[in-house]
Structure formats: C-alpha cells, structure tokens
C-alpha cells in the first residue's frame, strides 16, 4: 500500500469538489474492492475520499411500490431490514448471499453498483427489478446504466446517492456461486410485474444485462420447462478457469429455470 491523502467529506458537493481537485482521487465506500486493490499495490491513488460521513447516502425508505435505499447501505442491512424483507424479499435474499459475513458487514450497495464487477450480485437486481439510479445530479435508468466490464454510465466523479427499486408482484434470485470466491459465476433475477417479466443476469457477461430472449419466452409462458427450448448464445460471455462461456450460458438457463420455479412456489 502506498501513501495517500485521506479525506472524509460530509456532503456530496464537498466530495465531488475534492475529487475534481485531485490528480488521482478515489472514492471509498465499503472498501471491499478498493482496499484489497490498494493492498496488492494495484492502485496508488493520491487522494482517498471516504463517503461514509455523507448523510444523503444513508437511509432506507419503503413507499407503495418502491423501495429506496441509500447508496452507503451495507449488504447486511439490506439482508436483515424488516421492511425490505417484507416488501422486497428477493433483494434481502440476494444481499444475504453476497460474499461472506465480513464482506456483507462492510460492503455497500452503491459501491457494488458503481464498481460494476461482472460477478457482483446487486447488478442483477438493478436490471431485473428495473431500478433507477440517483446520483448527485441526475437519475439513470437501470437498463441504461451498465456499459461494459467495470464500466457504467457514471461520469468521472459522479456519486450514486440512492437506488430505487420498484416492487414486483413476485421475484426470485438464483446464484451459482464460484466455489472459491463465492462471487456469482452467474446470477439470475426473475421478476414478475403484473405479468410483465424482467430477467436480470450477472456474472455471465462483461456486465449485467437483461436476458430479453428469456423474458420473451417467460412472458408467453411463466414455466421453467418453457426455457428448455431457449437457445442462449454464449457469444461475448466470460470464460475463465472457473467456467467456460458455454457452461455459463447453460447455467444462466438453469438458474432462470430455478428462479421461475421459486416464483411459482411463492
């Protein structure tokens, strides 16, 4: 780890201003990616801007049809929050399976979504639930947010403040964890909004995406067996020592089938 300047601003404006005035500034949220990166010497920022003290990034509110979660909310809070568990249990379920207990106690939703690790869990929820991402200056539709490997619609210095998740009639998330890291080899979230099905996939590609082919089939017939005939091309899918692209494509289907089975059992 190298020497850096540490800042702890108390407002979005102050944080952005620190970022803009730095030659090489990094925001620190839960630190579950950044800190290991620093320890391995893979990043050497001049300034670390800790976002933990910014009031606007905290808080959870549940209104009719919408769960709004502050970006600094830790995974464990989402997993255990009684109101989220009641109205949007799929999100608590997903959050409760991120990494391990230590990761969940520190990692934040905003950090995960801003980082857009291809194997992170939350992006499946952002896509699958059709979430809206609020930043200090605008709102971004979840569908338009993920661009590529570790690449999002965020502009340099832009900070996610909260994420709004519409509440579906029913939804389920199925994850095939990497046995080593427990990241998602693939993760599939299927949500039913009054008969309109959304399917968010993480892990399989360079970033999370909507599986429109699967959605089309499920919109016709919300039945796991309906997916047996779906041909899911693996072009552009990730391939590494844990899973080939072909195996990932297969797993997306299997996880989707299982999520549909879960939904039908609700």
């Amino acid at each position, binding site marked *: 780890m190298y020497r850096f300047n540490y800042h702890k601003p108390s407002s979005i404006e102050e944080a952005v201003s620190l970022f803009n005035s730095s030659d090489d500034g990094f925001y620190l949220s839960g630190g579950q990616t950044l800190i290991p990166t620093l320890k391995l010497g893979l990043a050497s920022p001049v300034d670390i801007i800790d976002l933990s003290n910014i009031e606007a990034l905290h808080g959870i509110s549940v209104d009719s049809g919408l769960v709004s979660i502050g970006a600094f909310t830790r995974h464990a809070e989402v997993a255990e929050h009684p109101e989220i568990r009641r109205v949007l249990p799929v999100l608590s379920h997903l959050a409760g399976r991120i990494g391990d207990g230590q990761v969940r106690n520190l990692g934040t939703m905003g950090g995960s979504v801003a980082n857009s690790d291809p194997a992170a869990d939350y992006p499946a929820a952002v896509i699958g639930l059709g979430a809206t991402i609020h930043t200090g200056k605008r709102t971004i539709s979840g569908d338009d947010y993920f661009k590529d490997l570790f690449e999002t619609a965020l502009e340099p210095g832009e900070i996610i403040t909260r994420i709004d998740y519409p509440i579906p009639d029913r939804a389920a998330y199925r994850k095939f964890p990497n*046995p*080593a890291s427990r990241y998602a080899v693939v993760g599939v979230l299927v949500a039913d909004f009054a008969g309109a099905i959304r399917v968010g996939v993480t892990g399989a590609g360079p970033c999370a995406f909507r599986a429109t082919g699967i959605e089309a089939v499920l919109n016709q017939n919300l039945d796991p067996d309906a997916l047996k005939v779906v041909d899911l091309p693996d072009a552009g899918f990730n391939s590494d*020592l*844990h899973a080939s692209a072909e195996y990932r494509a297969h797993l997306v289907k299997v996880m989707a089938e299982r999520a549909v089975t879960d939904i039908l059992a609700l």
Partner: protein
Amino acid sequence: MNEAKSATGIGASVKRKEDVRFITGSGCYTDDINQPGQSHAAFLRSPYARARIESIDASAALEIEGVIAVLTGADMVADGLGDIPCGWLVKQKDGSDMVSAPHPPMAATQTNYVGEPYGVVIADTLAAARLGMEAVLTDFTELDAIVDLATVRDSEQIHEGVEGNLAFDWELGEREATEAALASAAHVTRLDLTNNRLIPNAMEPRAALGIFDKVSGEHTLYTTSQNPHLARLVLSAFVQIAPEHKLRIVAPDVGGGFGSKIFIYAEETAVIWAARKVGRPVKWTADRSESFLADAHGRDHITHAELGTDEEGRFVALKVQTTANLGAYLSTFGSAVPTYLYGTLMAGQYSTPNIYVEVQGVYTNTAPVDAYRGAGRPEATYVVERIVETAARELGRDPVELRRLNMIKPDQFPYETPVALVYDTGNYEASLAKALVHADYAGFAERRAAAAAEGKRRGIGLACYIEACGLAPSNLAIQLGAQVGLYESGEIRVNPTGSVTVFTGSHSHGQGHETTFAQVVSDKLGIPFEDVEVVHGDTGRVEFGLGTYGSRSLAVGGSALIRAAEKLITKGRRIAAHMLEAEVDAVEFIDGDFLVKDSNQSLSFAEIAFAAYVPANYPEDLEPGFSEKAFYDPENFTYPAGTHIAEVEVDVDTGVVELKQFVAVDDFGNVINPMIVTGQVHGGVAQGAGQALLEQAIYDEFGQLVTGSYMDYCMPRADDVPDFTVDTTVTPCTHNPLGVKGCGEAGAIGSPAAIMNAVTDAVGDNSISMPATSEKVWRALR
C-alpha cells in the same frame, strides 16, 4: 477403543492444554516476536518462470528513506554460503545417483520459477522495504518456461547437466515378473490418472526473525519450522550460515504446517544471514501471495497403471508408471515423496504378488514440490484404490467383495509386500466391515433410487487405504538414500518436587503434543497430568530431534518418552530399594508408587524425586539427580490402515457434486486421545475433499501461477463438507511400546480416492479427474 484408566490418562479425551491460548488469541507465533532495533525484509522475486539475471541496480532503492541494504543471491555466493541440499539421495534404475541441480538459497544467475527469491531488501519498516523492493531495477532476459509434464522431457534443459530435465528414473519391484503376470492375466484393467497439484495453505504463513549477537557470536532464528533441529543441521553443515553451537533455532507456536514447514527455504536462510550482515535483527513474514508462490507445493503426478486379475478376480499383477513434477529444484524431501513414500505403498491392503513401479522425477519451471499431508501415500492410494474400483466395474463385481477377496488376511502378518515393506499387523476386513455398517452400504440402492426420483445422481465409493508412518529404521532409510536419521529423542526432567518437564524433538504445529505427550508421561509415571509440562521446538532447550512429519510424533517421539520413563523407573526402584532396605528386584512401580512386594512399604514418585536431589539416604554407587533421556529408533514403519466410504450426489443440471456422507474407520493402533484423533481425521478428510472436489494449482504456459489467491484457488470450507462419521478399529502396532501407529495424514490419504470413486460411480464416467469441478462433471454428463 482401548479404555482409559483415568480421566487424563492414555485413552482419555482430555481437552487440549494449548487451546486456551490458541482460542483466546494469546499464542505466540513468530510474527508476534519483536526485537529492539528490528528491521524488516522484503524479497525480490522473479516475475518470470525462467529468466537470466543480467544485472541488478539497487541504487534508487538505497536512496529510499529507511532502506538499509539490498542483498542479492550473488552476495550470498560471495559470502561463501552453500546450496540448500536435498535430504534424500535416490538411486536410479541403473544404480547411478539422481541428478540434483544446485539449489541456491537465492538465485544468483538464473531464476527458475515465478516467485523465486533472488534478493532481499532490508529496511527500518516493512513499508520502506516494500518501496525499496519496487525501486530495484533488475534486467532479466526471459527464457521459455518449461511447465508441461507431457513435453518436459523433450523441452529445453532447465539446469546445466540435467539431460531431459530428468532428476531420476527410479523403479521398485520386479518388472519382468510383473509384465509376464499381466500378459497371462485373465483381465487387465488400465487407467490413466492425474494427481492434481496442491498448495498447502497453512493458516499461519511462513515467517522468520533472525538475530545475531556480535558479542557472543550467537545466531538465533525464530521461524515457522516443523523440525528446528533439522533446519539447524542443514543451515550449519550445508549452507554454512553459522557453526551448529552458535545457531539456535526456535519454532514457537506454529499455525499449521501440513509438510510445507519441514523444508529449508530461501527466506528463513536469508533472514539469519542478513541479520549478521546488517547488524540488526531482521524480520520477515510471508503474505498470502508469497505463500502461494513460494511454499513448496504438493502432489502433481501423471500416472498410467495396469492391474491384472485372474478368473476369480484375484489380483495377479500391478504395474504403475508415473511422471512426478518436482518443480524447479529438489526440495528437502522432494525426491523421497514420489519414490520411497509412494512406490512402496502399491500393495495397498492386498496380497498382489507382482508389483512394479517406475517413477520419472522431472524438473519444471514451477515452485518446488515436496511433502504435503500424506506425502506420496495419497498418490499411491489414489492409484491403487481407483484401479481396484475400476477393475470391479469392468469385471461386474461388487467392489467390496473384490476387495475382500484380495485383502491380506489377519493370519498373514507379518506380511512382506513385493515393494519392500513388511506390514507388522492389521485387520483390514474389520475396518471394512465396520465402515460398511456406518455407511449403511446395504441401503445405498434405496438412497440412489430416491435421488434419481429427484433427478439427481447418487454415487458411492470406497477406499481401503494403507499408509506407512514413522519412517524407519534409520539404518535402512540411510541405505535407501536418507541423509538424516529417523529416530526421535525424548527427555524427562523430574523436578525435586516431583513435577516433570518433558522435552521432545518432535514438534507440534497444531497436533496437540502438549496434551497427548503429557497424557503419555503422566500415565506412565502415575503422576498428575497437570504436573507435566511439554517443551518442544527450541534447539536451545531440546537436545536434538527430527521434528514432526509423516505422522511420526507419537509413534517415534512418544516411544522415546516411554523409554526415558522406563529409565527413570529403573533408577527410582534402586533409590526406593535403598531407602526401604529391600532388594531392587523386590521393588515394583505401580501407578506412581514404588512398592516393596508383599509388604505395606512404599514411596511415592515425588518422594523418590526429592531423595534423588537431596541424597541424604541414597545408594553410594548412584548419581544424584532424576532426569533421563532416550533416543528411540523404530525397527519398522507403522502401518495405519482403514476404510473410507464417500457418498455423493450430483446435480445433473449444473454438475455440482455434493459430498453427502463420509465414513472413516481407521486402525491407528492404540489411541492416546480419541478427541484429538477424531479432529485429525476431520481435518485430513476435509483436505482430501478439497483435493478431490475443489483445489487445483494451475500454471499457465508461461509458468505464471493462475491460482495465486483464494479468489481462484478453492480451499474447502465448513459448508463444503458434511458431518463426518469417524470410528476406529484397533490392532496395536507390534514394535513400539505404545502400540500406536499415527493418525495425522490418514484422512487426506483415503478420502480423495473414496470421493472420486463415488463421483465416477454417480456420473458413470471414469475419466473425470480431480478436482471434480461442476463444469467437468456437467460435460461428462452431456
């Protein structure tokens, strides 16, 4: 199970003394020890698998605040330090010596694996040392990496003088007789196997703190060693760091070893050398990335085996051909593991009359490979038990029945195998029978059908393993190439008040010696368990020892303590006879008291101890004092054996294998502490499950370690394994005074074969290799 005669005696599940400090975070590990004026080391490591060092420019590093020195492999050569020797000289087929390439502690001219140290930066702080490390400019010429076992013999030569990168071409058994028997066998089963490369991953990474006292000339090295005396011997006699009497090595609390802390490594060597050079204590603690790169790895074989059977299914011949990856250098026991700890085990539990094993040990541009929990015996068991199971399938025989038919029977002991061992005792069918009951083998068909009804495949697999522990005897091992003896020392110093301090040359890095050895000594001397203190791991306190590996501590080290205790009792009887005015022959020692036969006269152990130190009424021809030691050299190996049965369920949609049930019934001979033994089996089985299902070290074609962190190298976790069913049978070892055999490795030896037999049974494809990852299984199922 043998019955315990007291709550703390032999056979009792005494809670471990050492756990109080371990679980309250108050253990004292090498990294916990600090010295005034201490500096820190950061190692320069090769980024290439094979490269020539053209030049090293340390000038920028030396300008960094806090950097004290940059020392290189060339500096070590200039100081006259020797190479790290291999501890076992294997003879090749033609009688010539193996080809041992020089293994410098730090590379001076060429690096041969990624992570190999070639220099060290010493600084006031660890941060400065690391900054210094990054500021050193090294000019390398990268050479082609040789990593593929399939082509290594035809690749460029890694070491000068090592043709075909072949360290040795070794054989054991009768080739002609074996081939003839195979040729005339009714059926021959052929099998190709890979034994996957593993990275040990002890919880505590390696660490070292070197201290040099220029006034006394004494060197002290605190380090994570399983065998500090062996380290001292090698560092003195071969590397020539310091004369043996000026070098003290202390292995304090050590957090796991699994073999990886037996060996003499570059870093520990460099730290004590550097401490003298810079005139300050030098501390180094590996980070996990360094552990992955530079700890000796384990296993890594490819094997072709052939098993011939007659019309009745009796094994008539076994032929095994193995290529063993030794890595870039021959590590301390790198040559012994795939030869004498592997080929000798090919009889398994069976009376196969003809066995021939040949092993080619090859160099590659990867980290050195050496002993890892089981060391050769898991590899041998994997060959024998996979091919036996395969034969049963090919012959349409029940694998249990086929094994039983071929097992060595209890009345055949001592049994001499065709591969150089004499099994002293055993009852293999007893362990098998008990394991079958625990596993409800008879009910498996029903469970398989139930799984099938849920769309899952269920499989069952056995491994009837044998292993050889407590490597011995010294004279035979030395004839076979060992460069050290294989005895162990034990000393019991009785204090005047009757409490005792026990010194053992074996070493605990998690095994629980402080408890088990105290049980042995308190039981033998009839004194309270609490009155026994066990000291180990310090060449300054323990006279000599060979450390802990190969499940040897109790069988060899414990036996030495029994011998020392016997000497104490003999002396005590003379003292008692004098004090009680009786004949020595009339004095008996029973449960801590010296008694005169047929009388009511007795003296306690403590009273005798006091008399020995305050010799007022004392035999004239006897030295005062009450302290004895013994060196115990076993006459044979011990042979733990048992049956492991695994049951798995395969998710056909994803290929995920779930280990549903694991039964281990082991014959460890007499058991001193059943709780500790059960824990050892649990840990071993978990490691074996890791090898079978999860773990694999992967180097890419450039010799870069792809699985260099826990993100990619999958260690087993608690939720990867079921509750194990662990039980024992007992045939006491016939040749050591405790009747014990050793239990540290058995779990890791039997389990990979049992689990893979179960996986291949479930999938119906015998070609699946370890680790049986979900994608491999999914592909096999398609």
